């Protein structure tokens, strides 16, 4: 049970003077994500997507406006909103297993139960046999899967993902998107969460989302909010898919026109 609501959220990064001017990253952003909905945030580089996600996680406070999750104000990070970072942020001194178990230790989950949850999540992302490896011994795609398993293991209410597939090559990316689709399709309530995904890729957004939010160039504002009603599993060659893709591309292309 977790609905997310941004209302009038702005973020100003104060500068330190002398060429380092204040940056208005987001301006008056308002939109909502329903419980168990998958929402993608699309926008150009530098438009404030990461900033938005970090504020939702509770790492930074908005300069104005409010972020509510289930009607409660977000003011600090919690395992109820776990994050998959763009650079994975795995603990290099922990094995795959230990990375995934970290959040459970923090939650004081008893050892036996912890082990069962870790095993289940390793299976979910298909990393059996790599439990004892260290992150530096894994490929980019595998690290990404560990990162997703680690975030899922604490059983969050909202899963936040910052361009989780951006660093992968094309083949790995489509494979991971497929797997993410598989995880999404799972009826298991343990797996089905409210999800917020930040991405550059229109295809990825349509493939996975129930809702797509398009942001303008900096300072980011909500340019458009679309519902994706296509049946799953979705294919990039479906006519509905192509139609929606063209619509979103036009929306973003608009943004390419110089503003000034």
């Amino acid at each position, binding site marked *: 049970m977790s609905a997310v609501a941004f209302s009038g959220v702005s973020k100003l990064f104060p500068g330190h003077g002398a060429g380092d001017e204040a940056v208005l990253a987001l301006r008056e952003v308002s939109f909502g994500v329903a419980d168990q909905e998958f929402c993608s945030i699309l926008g150009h580089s530098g438009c404030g997507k990461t900033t938005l996600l*970090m504020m939702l*996680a*509770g*790492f930074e406070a908005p300069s104005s406006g409010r972020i509510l999750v289930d009607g409660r104000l977000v003011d600090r*990070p*919690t*395992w109820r*909103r*776990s*994050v998959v*970072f763009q*650079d994975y*942020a*795995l*603990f*290099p*001194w922990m094995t795959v297993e230990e990375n995934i178990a*970290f*959040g459970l230790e*923090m*939650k004081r989950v008893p050892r036996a139960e912890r082990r069962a949850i870790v095993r289940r999540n390793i299976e979910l992302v298909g990393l059996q046999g790599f439990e004892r490896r*260290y*992150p*530096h*011994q894994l490929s980019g795609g595998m690290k990404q899967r560990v990162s997703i398993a*680690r*975030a899922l293991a*604490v059983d969050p209410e909202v899963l936040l993902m910052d361009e989780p597939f951006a660093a992968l090559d094309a083949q790995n990316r489509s494979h991971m998107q497929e797997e993410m689709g598989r995880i999404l399709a799972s009826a298991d309530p343990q797996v089905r969460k409210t999800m917020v995904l930040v991405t550059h890729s229109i295809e990825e957004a349509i493939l996975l989302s129930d809702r797509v939010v398009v942001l303008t160039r900096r300072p980011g504002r909500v340019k458009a909010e679309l519902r994706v009603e296509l049946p799953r599993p979705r294919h990039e060659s479906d006519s509905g898919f192509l139609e929606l893709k063209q619509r979103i591309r036009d929306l973003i292309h608009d943004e390419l026109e110089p503003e000034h």
Partner: protein
Amino acid sequence: MRPGAHAAAHPASGERAQPLAGLQALLRRARRLGLLAALIAVWWYVSERVLDRSTRALLPPPQAVLRAAWDLTRSGELWHHLHDSLKRELVAFLWACTAIPLGIAMGSWKAVEEQVDPVIEMLRPVPPLAWIPLSILWFGIGDTQNEFIIFLGCFFPILVNTVSGVKGVETNLVRAARCLGANVWQILWRVVLRAALPQIVTGVRVGLGVGWMALVAAELVGANSGLGFLINDSRTILRTDYVIVGMATIGVVGFAIDRAIRIVVRRLMPWSQALAR
């Protein structure tokens, strides 16, 4: 690659290759000691050929030094001094490890750094040796004074490296821990300390080295035992061979300490090796 048929035609060559390869490896290792051997040869030449009977005491030849080392080892004297020096180094090092929590606090909380930094920055440029006169007045001659000097040599490298290691911890690692439910202490202990560990270890290596150098200086003037004392005491009775034995021991032991740390680190932090590469 040699073709297989060729190797089969000369079965003996394959067998002989083994010891030959071993010999080659040995030679390759020996070649690295070339300069060292040349320097020892020069030493021998100067001592035996350039100096005469009256001045040879200034630089006794290598074989005389070896004989002196044997004498000192057999009488237990060398071991006695080495033991005292190592004990002082160890005690001082343990005290200097307080720099690790202090450095973590400084790197994590601005308020702590603001207070501590000016004090540290004032003390750090003062070489440990400059503390010797005052410390002799404070602690007298002996272990405490020596340990104080070594402590000063050890402390600052560990502190500076810890602070910079902590400040260099990736923001996202800390954020990941926070959103997985870690509290402040868990973040410091489980994330910040581990992430900064490679650089803390660098600080420890430098600190032990500086401490070892400071130790000898402290013992030269403020001790009744130890390798520094051995050197200075032997000088007063003009036993230059003992002086050189003391110096060589200091060099070898300092080198061995550094090597030992590197081996331990490689064992305990396999992940950091890969990161450094």
